């Protein structure tokens, strides 16, 4: 949490993250350039760099897309999630390097505007071929790459906390779901471009394996989330849902329950149980998967804190999450799915320690 904004809020963890990223990229690019230069000595330096940057950015995009579901499936991957934005910006920078070299090498220094050439160099090949429909064998692949770059550039340009603060976490996250569109466009760019002339089976197999791996990860994470969503309230009475028993809420940690299709986080501390909205105000992280630190519910993604009684962040911070009315009947916890007005205090229900 931070009141003031800086270009980059450096801390030890971020430095380690970025140093590791830099080292891995240098090794990968260096290995690729070395191997390719040895195997194809006739390749020019700009061609090597162009392909190296393309390959590195594509691999990095797969890593970025894998982090989300991995972190849902196993909390040990959470440290990769903390600074995923750095991966995204790096990936966009590599894509920009690739795009810049490609435009210079194939579209510049001619009599046509290079940007016009990128989009229309092969426009004459876009034909309607009866009876198969559009002549896909000559589909221009550059526009797919250009469109993907636009999406990645927009995401990189809005990756700073200033945009998160101004747009709000929900709009910001919806905007950054554009990464899936970028991925589809890049698949088309590579499939209708590089794979049309590259005859080795390695590349289509690798691309297909990347897609398959990401799909399986996302399906596994989706199945886990669906199981949680299906664990809906066990009974409803007087507008309250029976969501858990007191014994199911561990001391010092959160528990996520679902009431009326809404996820709520339950926390137990010093003999009382509290109910807060499950969504962190920072980036929508799952508050209920966090712990209690210094008396506050702490988001597992970036450590944002909220007081248990009223959902407010401790001063001087002003963020807050809604609280929910909770009632205890015997050992059962009954929850009002409707969130209370912002900042309303609920002292928590007493339970036996």
């Amino acid at each position, binding site marked *: 949490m931070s009141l003031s*904004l800086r270009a980059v809020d450096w801390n030890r963890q971020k430095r380690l993250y970025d140093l590791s990223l830099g080292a891995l990229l240098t090794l990968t690019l260096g290995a690729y350039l070395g191997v390719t230069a040895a195997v194809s000595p006739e390749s020019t330096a700009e061609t090597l760099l162009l392909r190296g940057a393309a390959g590195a950015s594509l691999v990095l995009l797969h890593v970025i897309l894998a982090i989300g579901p991995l972190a849902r499936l196993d909390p040990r991957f959470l440290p990769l999630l903390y600074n995923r934005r750095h991966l995204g910006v790096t990936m966009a920078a590599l894509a920009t390097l690739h795009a810049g070299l490609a435009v210079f090498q194939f579209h510049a220094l001619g009599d046509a505007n290079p940007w016009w050439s990128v989009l229309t160099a092969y*426009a004459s090949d876009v034909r309607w071929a009866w009876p198969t429909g559009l002549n896909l064998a000559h589909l221009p692949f550059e526009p797919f790459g250009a469109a993907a770059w636009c999406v990645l*550039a927009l995401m990189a340009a*809005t990756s*700073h906390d200033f945009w998160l603060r101004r747009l*709000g976490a929900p709009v910001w996250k919806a905007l950054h*779901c554009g990464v899936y569109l970028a991925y589809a466009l890049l698949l088309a760019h590579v499939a209708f471009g590089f794979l049309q002339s590259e005859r080795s089976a390695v590349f289509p197999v690798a691309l297909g394996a990347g897609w398959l791996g990401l*799909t399986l990860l996302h399906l596994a994470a989706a199945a886990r989330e669906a199981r949680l969503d299906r664990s809906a309230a066990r009974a409803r009475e007087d507008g309250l849902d029976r969501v858990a028993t007191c014994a199911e809420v561990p001391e010092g940690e959160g528990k996520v329950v679902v009431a009326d299709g809404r996820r709520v986080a339950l926390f137990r501390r010093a003999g009382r149980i509290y109910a807060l909205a*499950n969504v962190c105000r920072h980036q929508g992280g799952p508050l209920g998967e966090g712990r209690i630190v210094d008396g506050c519910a702490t988001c597992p993604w970036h450590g944002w804190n909220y007081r248990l009684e009223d959902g407010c962040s401790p001063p001087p911070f002003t963020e807050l999450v809604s609280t929910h009315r909770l009632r205890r009947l015997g050992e059962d916890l009954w929850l009002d799915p409707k969130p209370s007005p912002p900042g309303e205090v609920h002292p928590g229900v007493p339970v036996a320690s």
Partner: protein
Amino acid sequence: MDLVPAVYRAVAAVSLGFAAIHLTAGVAFAVAFQVRGLASVDPTLRRAGLGLRLVLLPGVILLWPWLAVLWRRAATGGDLLPPAGPSPERLRWLHRRAWWALLIAGPLILGVALGVRRPPPPPQPWPPSALR
């Protein structure tokens, strides 16, 4: 004149034209925004350093229409709260739909692209027969 390439070129022309106008206006707006608007929209950034301003510059150029509205609201004492945006349930729905679309699009794109690949040209003898 073939219709499909002509339509394709027209779409490309409109897209490039729109991009050129948007980016030019964005650069012009960014100059004014960095000087006066940033502090209006976010008073905590009154003394923002050069590093932060540079980091924000690309986003200012791309999102200048929305920032212009925000700046005007700040100038007239209006509400600067971020928009409510989709609910967490709606975001999860969006996520699920995006991945279902990729589940279908991925093999479709790869399958079609590999299916329409032309066979490689036969190896050419060297030197060509005319030079032997």
